[in-house]
């Protein structure tokens, strides 16, 4: 079998029916907020599309993104991703190892120069020339710069690759940065999330194969169709927020009634992602449905944005001591100046000479 045959041939070989395929295309069109007619266009384009070569580089990360992608659903939109692309290098998933693995990456980079998609998960450490993370003796920085040269586009997967994520959290000992901090001359799609929603990756790939271009992106480089709204906008608990009904602890009456988790620190209002509509684990639920507030994992610096359990309207730092200190300082300044004023007054009184008739 030719590794880079069309997707149609590939699906036919695997016995995937046209009906199932059209259903997938309709779902993709709907998720990408395209008009209903676009499903047919997607289907036609995908059937004919040559499966692009994909090189997947994993850097400073926890493999959670790959785990999320490969284990999320069965059977599966996400398996389709591997039918839609020819995954030529992914050191966690591929069978080859050692020199064989690196050779397959180099071969793909040569053969499909200028055409392959580069998927990156994980941040890139820069301190001490990047020695904090190396693969086959080469630093992540070196591998990324080399692989990005021939890439048609880069898809940064997960918050580490998109915004630096946890490796970038204070005090960031390895000097970890995002892909977009290093590569400036290639189109980059940021699919953030810790981990990101698998269907978003599939959607971006389907869009690329259908239209030959990357989807419309927001100001942080994320596909607008998936990151255009906040979790709060689409949360099923939103009516409770509007009514002012809040859970005050994780096991109170409000929590049992499914009230809003704002006061327990939910970051839904400031988090752009489609968890509330796309959901997780085969559309089972998303974190708020399990009773925990959103952590805001698809936003930059989510790890440093205050406690996960501090409400968005509350301060992220201690205020009581600061306020008390300021009050004491204010009183001290007033008292000190008052003493100085009184001393001045006393001196003025002492130096005062009484007026006598002689003066007149």
């Amino acid at each position, binding site marked *: 079998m030719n590794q880079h045959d069309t997707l149609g041939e590939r699906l036919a070989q695997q016995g995937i029916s046209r009906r199932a395929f059209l259903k997938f295309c309709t779902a993709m069109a709907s998720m990408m907020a395209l008009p209903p007619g676009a499903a047919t266009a997607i289907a036609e384009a995908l059937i004919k599309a040559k499966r692009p070569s994909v090189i997947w580089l994993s850097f400073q990360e926890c493999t959670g993104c790959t785990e999320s992608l490969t284990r999320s659903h069965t059977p599966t939109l996400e398996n389709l991703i591997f039918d839609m692309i020819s995954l030529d290098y992914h050191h966690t998933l591929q069978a080859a190892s050692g020199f064989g693995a690196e050779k397959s990456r180099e071969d793909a980079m040569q053969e499909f120069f200028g055409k392959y998609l580069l998927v990156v998960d994980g941040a890139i450490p820069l301190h001490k020339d990047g020695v904090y993370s190396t693969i086959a003796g080469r630093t992540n920085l070196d591998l990324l710069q080399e692989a990005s040269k021939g890439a048609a586009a880069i898809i940064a997967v997960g918050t580490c690759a998109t915004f630096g994520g946890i490796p970038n959290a204070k005090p960031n000992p390895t000097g970890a940065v995002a892909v977009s901090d290093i590569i400036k001359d290639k189109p980059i799609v940021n699919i953030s999330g810790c981990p990101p929603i698998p269907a978003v990756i599939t959607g971006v790939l389907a869009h690329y194969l259908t239209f030959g271009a990357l989807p419309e992106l927001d100001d942080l480089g994320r596909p607008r169709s998936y990151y255009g709204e906040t979790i709060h906008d689409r949360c099923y608990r939103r009516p409770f927020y*509007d009514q002012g009904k809040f859970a005050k602890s994780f096991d109170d009456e409000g929590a049992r009634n499914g009230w809003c988790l704002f006061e327990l620190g939910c970051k839904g209002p*400031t988090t752009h992602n489609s968890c509330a509509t796309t959901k997780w684990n085969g559309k089972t639920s998303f974190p708020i449905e399990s009773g925990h507030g959103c952590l805001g994992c698809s936003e930059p610096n989510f790890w440093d944005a205050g406690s996960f359990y501090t409400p968005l309207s509350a301060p992220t730092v201690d205020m009581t001591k600061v306020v008390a200190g300021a009050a004491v300082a204010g009183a001290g300044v007033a008292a000190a100046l008052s003493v100085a004023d009184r001393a001045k007054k006393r001196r003025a009184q002492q130096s005062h000479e009484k007026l006598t008739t002689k003066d007149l």
Partner: protein
Amino acid sequence: MNQQTLLEFVRGPGLQIAAVVFVLGMVYRLLQLLLLGRKKNLATPRGSALRGGLRTMWHRSIPSPGLTSRGYITVITGYVFHIGFMITLLFLSQHIELLSAVLKFEWPALPPGLITITTIVTIAAMVTLLVHRFTDPVKRLLSDYQDYLTWILTFLPLLTGFLLKQGIGLGYQQMLIVHIITLELLLIATPFTKLAHMLTTFSARWYNGAIAGYKGIKV
């Protein structure tokens, strides 16, 4: 600096800076006035300073006799604004979250629908007062730049809070940042402007009343 780090700043160090300026400035201003001290009055008192002080505190809080209809606009709309502002500030659950983080105790919130009404009424009162300040010749003459500056500084948190709650205009995150910044500007400006009346109003009324009371004058 992205929006997330900006939000982190205004909820963290930015809020601390604003709170320090506000508390230090206000404590200093109030104590500095009180510690000025007064010479002992050697004259024989002709009345009670205590009663005179209390009477003036009360009298200046209610419309004075002979008030014109234009005067009533100031008094009534002024009361509506102050009460509406305090309810909005103290009884929205998100505000209680902020205040209790400083004060370490909580109190029950009012329903958000009610707070929406108090916000609209407060905004309407502020606009009425501003229009009145422009149209009334005496008020216009008495107003200086501070009256307009403090109006803007007080109006902005109300307006941005309302827009944030209603989801109008900017996204939640941007509007939350703008709302917190307007609050911090208000806190920082307070000790240096007429807004400091929030602590000195009643002590000033007391002071005037007590002088008159000591002299046996009824004001």
